[in-house]
């Protein structure tokens, strides 16, 4: 019987030591960890965007070359904003120093700043340094009078239209949402077939809130005031929701718009089945890609009525970083002209620097860039509240409920107004 004892003991011991003894081993396996490199070398962990065509790697390489004392450990996180948030949130909530600098969605700064997870960059910036950036993208990283980040990739809601079709029917580019739907429906009726007036992605997610805000802003509506309290106008909201529902029910919007994500909506456009589309700037390239789009060259971009929602990405520096100095150094480089040039070169990324739209080198490669400028100048950030994610969650559900015909615009508007006020009280 002794044997059993021994065996169990050995097995247990093996498993336990297996767990604990691995710790040092694990440490040494960690790529580019503290040890190993020369003493002065500082390692900065950068949690970046997906390595689209090698953009991030190329920028990291360029930085390391000009800063031989700093090594960047680039950690790739998924494109999906929510998936990235889970990782970054976990690390920062733990007060862990493993993130020094990270790519941030434009909606994060208020949350992270009020949580005290990121540092204001003002003391590291020289006077006038911020003037180089476009106002819109920069404003997303400003919260309570301080700058928490630098934008490196601009994006915003835009209106796309079929130039060939508008010409064919002698129509001007519409300037109000009502006109967009009206013109779209008219042309679609005459074209027949699978043609529809308008398409966008209105499935229940973040883009739906943006779509609604763009309608609501046209009517002069506001969401929050200076103090961050709700100033939603229920009557305007009702009108907004009614208009969106009308777009779906009248058939002005492509069938299924309320279920579309980005891919499905873009397929409708590239198949040549939509007159107008509301999409982000990132839609321009796929729409006009000769190989994959049947409307290449005919899909023109312009500003949305009133405002488009501001999107895009920037860099922020963690308050728990052990190497803030170096982290800021990299953050500045990541948003610098040199880095944006690399990005623009390798992938289709819209720059956030004013100079890019006037300057030679950028325009040489992307002659279409000036088209984006008025669109970007016409964009504004989503409500800059630390509770924005929750507000948006409420809105998505209620808007979708109205556009799929489950509740009336009046009920939806009342629910949104009441629940948002509660969150922001």
């Amino acid at each position: 019987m002794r044997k059993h004892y021994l065996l169990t003991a050995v097995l247990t011991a093996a498993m336990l030591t297996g767990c604990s003894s691995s710790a040092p081993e694990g440490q040494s396996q960690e790529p580019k960890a503290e040890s190993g490199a020369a003493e002065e070398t500082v390692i900065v962990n950068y949690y970046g965007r997906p390595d689209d065509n090698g953009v991030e790697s190329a920028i990291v390489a360029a930085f390391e070359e000009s800063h031989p004392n700093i090594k960047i450990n680039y950690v790739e996180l998924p494109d999906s904003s929510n998936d990235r948030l889970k990782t970054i949130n976990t690390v920062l909530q733990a007060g862990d120093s493993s993130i020094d600098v990270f790519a941030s969605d434009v909606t994060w700064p208020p949350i992270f700043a009020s949580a005290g997870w990121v540092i204001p960059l003002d003391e590291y910036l020289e006077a006038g340094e911020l003037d180089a950036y476009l106002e819109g993208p920069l404003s997303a990283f400003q919260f309570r009078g301080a700058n928490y980040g630098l934008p490196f990739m601009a994006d915003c809601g835009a209106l796309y239209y079929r130039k060939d079709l508008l010409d064919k029917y002698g129509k001007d580019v519409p300037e109000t949402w009502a006109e967009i739907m009206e013109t779209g429906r008219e042309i679609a009726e005459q074209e027949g077939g699978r043609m529809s007036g308008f398409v966008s992605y209105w499935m229940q997610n973040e883009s739906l809130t943006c779509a609604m805000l763009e309608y609501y802003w046209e009517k002069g509506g506001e969401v929050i005031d200076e103090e961050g309290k709700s100033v939603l106008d229920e009557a305007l909201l009702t009108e907004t929701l009614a208009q969106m529902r009308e777009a779906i029910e009248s058939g002005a919007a492509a069938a299924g718009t309320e279920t579309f994500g980005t891919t499905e909506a873009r397929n409708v456009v590239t198949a040549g089945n939509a007159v107008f589309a509301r999409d982000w700037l990132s839609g321009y390239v796929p729409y006009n890609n000769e190989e994959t789009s049947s409307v290449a060259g005919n899909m023109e971009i312009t500003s949305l009525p009133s405002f488009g929602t501001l999107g895009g990405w920037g860099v922020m520096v963690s308050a728990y970083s052990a190497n803030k100095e170096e982290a800021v150094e990299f953050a500045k480089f990541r948003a610098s002209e040199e880095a944006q040039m690399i990005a623009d070169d390798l992938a289709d990324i819209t720059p956030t620097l004013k100079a890019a739209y006037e300057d030679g080198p950028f325009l040489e490669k992307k002659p279409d860039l000036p088209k984006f400028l008025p669109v970007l100048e016409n964009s504004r950030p989503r409500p800059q509240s630390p509770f924005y994610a929750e507000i948006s969650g409420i809105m998505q559900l209620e808007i979708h409920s109205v556009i799929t015909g489950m509740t009336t615009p009046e009920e939806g508007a009342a629910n949104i107004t009441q629940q948002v006020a509660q969150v922001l009280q």
Partner: protein
Amino acid sequence: MERRMTRIGYLMLLPSVLLIAALIVYPVVNTIYQSFFEIRTQTAALGARFTGLDNYVKAINDTHFRDTLVWTLLFTGVSVGIELVIGMGLALLMKRKMPGQGLIRTAVLIPWAIPTVVAGIIWTQFFSQNGMINYILQTIHLIEEPLSWLGNQWLAKLSILIADIWKNTPYMSLLLLSGLLTISKDYYEAAQIDGATRWKQFTCITVPLIRSTMSVTVLFRIISAMRVYDLIVAMTGGGPAGKTETVSMYAVNTYFTYGNTGYGAALSVLMLLISIGISLLFVDSLKTKGSV
């Protein structure tokens, strides 16, 4: 001798107990603790504020929580029920000796091996307005106009159920098959001599003999079905109008995206209590010894 065996018994439990204690007990206690506090990411600097049962009171009055709970339970019941029936059918099929048996056994497992990220994209493509299913149904003239699979709440629920059943039936059939394989052929031979029909053999031999395997399989399938997340996020994002949002999706949103840690913890604890309630129904099945 007996006492020594008992001591060995405790020792053999030790690895499991230690592993669980090290990794799971603390988080569970921590979550329960957090659920009594108002903790928000946005006010992390101010620290946590004890609020007693406020989070629970809020949850009970939260109509959206109730809606997600009802859908989660409905989803769990229907998907597990159907998976059990189909899984049993497949298990019986895989048990039979036939040409290509190995291939069939492997093929049946495939849906489960396809990563959920990819499966989510495939099913979204199938059910989308201009997707494969509408296209096929229109081509064979079963429908005139495309159906809004993901826009109508009942069709959306159906789509999700189909995708989930497709994905998880392999789990069911594999475990049931392993149960079936421990039954001796002798029983069936004896039954055949007595002239029992196939159905009679199934209900009088197969089912009683694999009952405990079956209950455990169903129990764990229920547990994982109640936590369904990835597939629905990919297909509908909870839409239309939150009608396909499950409790886990709501909890994840609250906890991570909204940064409302305390309330998210309370939702998780409620979920835990409900799961324990359901599990208790299954404890008896382990106690009664199989008739073998």
